[in-house]
């Protein structure tokens, strides 16, 4: 039995596979949150139910991204599913998890650091030699997923749980800069003549896409899926900026996705 999804080289089967490492990881995350929430010192602050729901949704997103079939298809068969994993683990789950933390918890990650860490990880984890080397082993694949999650937390922390909230205008710049930076890997993936990754080029076929089409689809997903997440966040940012200006004295410094008023 395998504990984490990795490239196997065997023909794809729709028969369910168990990955106990994924259950352990997701269970530990949910369990530690549940245990912490039961402690007297845990003060969720206002809208605690929304916070818990947000954390639960984040854990659920991670579980979907890591477990069979998404995890198995993404780690060894289809590059576009691998991209779906990346979007879920690095862009969707982290803001949900961070929003689930108690209101008083602040993470002093500087925006420059968050941006640099995230985009360095994006480039490194889409580098062909690294992808092919790591996805072949369960440990490598596990490391990949953890790095994505950590990079996603570093990226979202200055927006969702900042020690010093940025001005909404800066938040928008932060998000728009990321949209632009994600364009680089998108261009390489979408317009490459030959497949980059041996993992997906030499994988037993699943579905009608050729390896070149699969890679193109991955690039488009990075652009469109990543764009949807980042543009939505930018929209929220502008909306909250407008709300803050309308309801109170101008200042425009609050965390994005804050569940407190």
């Amino acid at each position: 039995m395998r504990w984490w999804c990795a490239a196997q080289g065997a023909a794809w089967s729709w028969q369910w596979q168990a990955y106990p490492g994924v259950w352990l990881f997701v269970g530990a995350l949910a369990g530690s949150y549940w245990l912490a929430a039961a402690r007297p010192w845990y003060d969720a602050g206002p809208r605690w139910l929304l916070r818990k729901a947000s954390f639960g949704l984040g854990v659920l997103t991670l579980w979907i991204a890591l477990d069979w079939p998404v995890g198995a298809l993404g780690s060894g068969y289809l590059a576009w599913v691998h991209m779906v994993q990346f979007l879920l683990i690095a862009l969707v789950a982290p803001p949900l998890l961070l929003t689930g933390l108690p209101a008083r918890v602040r993470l002093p990650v500087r925006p420059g650091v968050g941006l640099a860490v995230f985009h360095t990880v994006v480039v490194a984890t889409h580098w062909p030699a690294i992808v092919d080397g790591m996805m072949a082993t369960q440990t490598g694949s596990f490391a990949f997923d953890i790095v994505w999650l950590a990079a996603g937390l570093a990226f979202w922390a200055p927006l969702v749980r900042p020690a010093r909230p940025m001005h909404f205008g800066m938040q928008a710049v932060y998000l728009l800069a990321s949209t632009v930076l994600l364009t680089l890997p998108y261009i390489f993936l979408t317009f490459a003549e030959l497949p980059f990754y041996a993992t997906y080029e030499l994988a037993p076929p699943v579905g009608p896409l050729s390896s070149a089409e699969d890679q193109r689809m991955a690039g488009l997903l990075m652009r469109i899926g990543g764009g949807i997440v980042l543009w939505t966040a930018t929209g929220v940012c502008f909306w909250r900026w407008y709300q803050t200006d309308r309801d109170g004295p101008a200042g425009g410094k609050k965390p994005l996705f804050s569940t407190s008023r």
Partner: protein
Amino acid sequence: MKTPRQVRFPRVMAALFALVAAVAASACGPASESDSEAVGGGFDRTEGRAGLRGLELDRPLPVEPFTLTGIELTGTEPVAFDFPDDVSDKLALFFFGFTNCPDICPVQMAVLSQALSNLSHAERSRVRVVFASVDPERDTPEQIRQWLDTFDRRFIGLRDDLDSVNAVQVALGLPPSVMSPGGEPGHATPVVAVYGDSVRAMYPMGVRQTDWRHDLPIMISRAAGDGNGG
């Protein structure tokens, strides 16, 4: 009033990244030979004496003329495939497999067909891809034609009795196919490159489009010449 609780996130992050980097360093690289084959990591891309990335033979292996029953390109009627007449002055790429093969056969055919699609029309017209079934009991002419058409309608399909197909495999330097106890045929995985009536190179599982793209023009030009190059 409670003060915001600050977690020293950068330190936590640094520790986490260090841990993951250590794990990654130990994991970077296939853990086993089967893992290595899973991602084609075992294929050596160093060019040989003849400038090919494929596995070059030390000396060209001459192939005696042979005839097998083939399937017409636009239908399923049987036609004779004569070697070397049907591939003279061309690069012939032979592959032996079966249409129900779940992994190696479709991967080899897909990689090859995509590499061929990058050639110019003139270059493409100088290549013949020949697929011979090692499972003639189950592979009907219709099945073979349909399967090959998913890759390239110009791929030639051969279906003859297994003994005849095995004799050709041996002539091309491959081991004969054998039926496993489970009823699945075991077969050699390389694509065999033949020009000038001789086997010149083999392309095992793990060869990528970039390798074919490097080698095909070289072999095509040699096949169009006197056929003795390499």
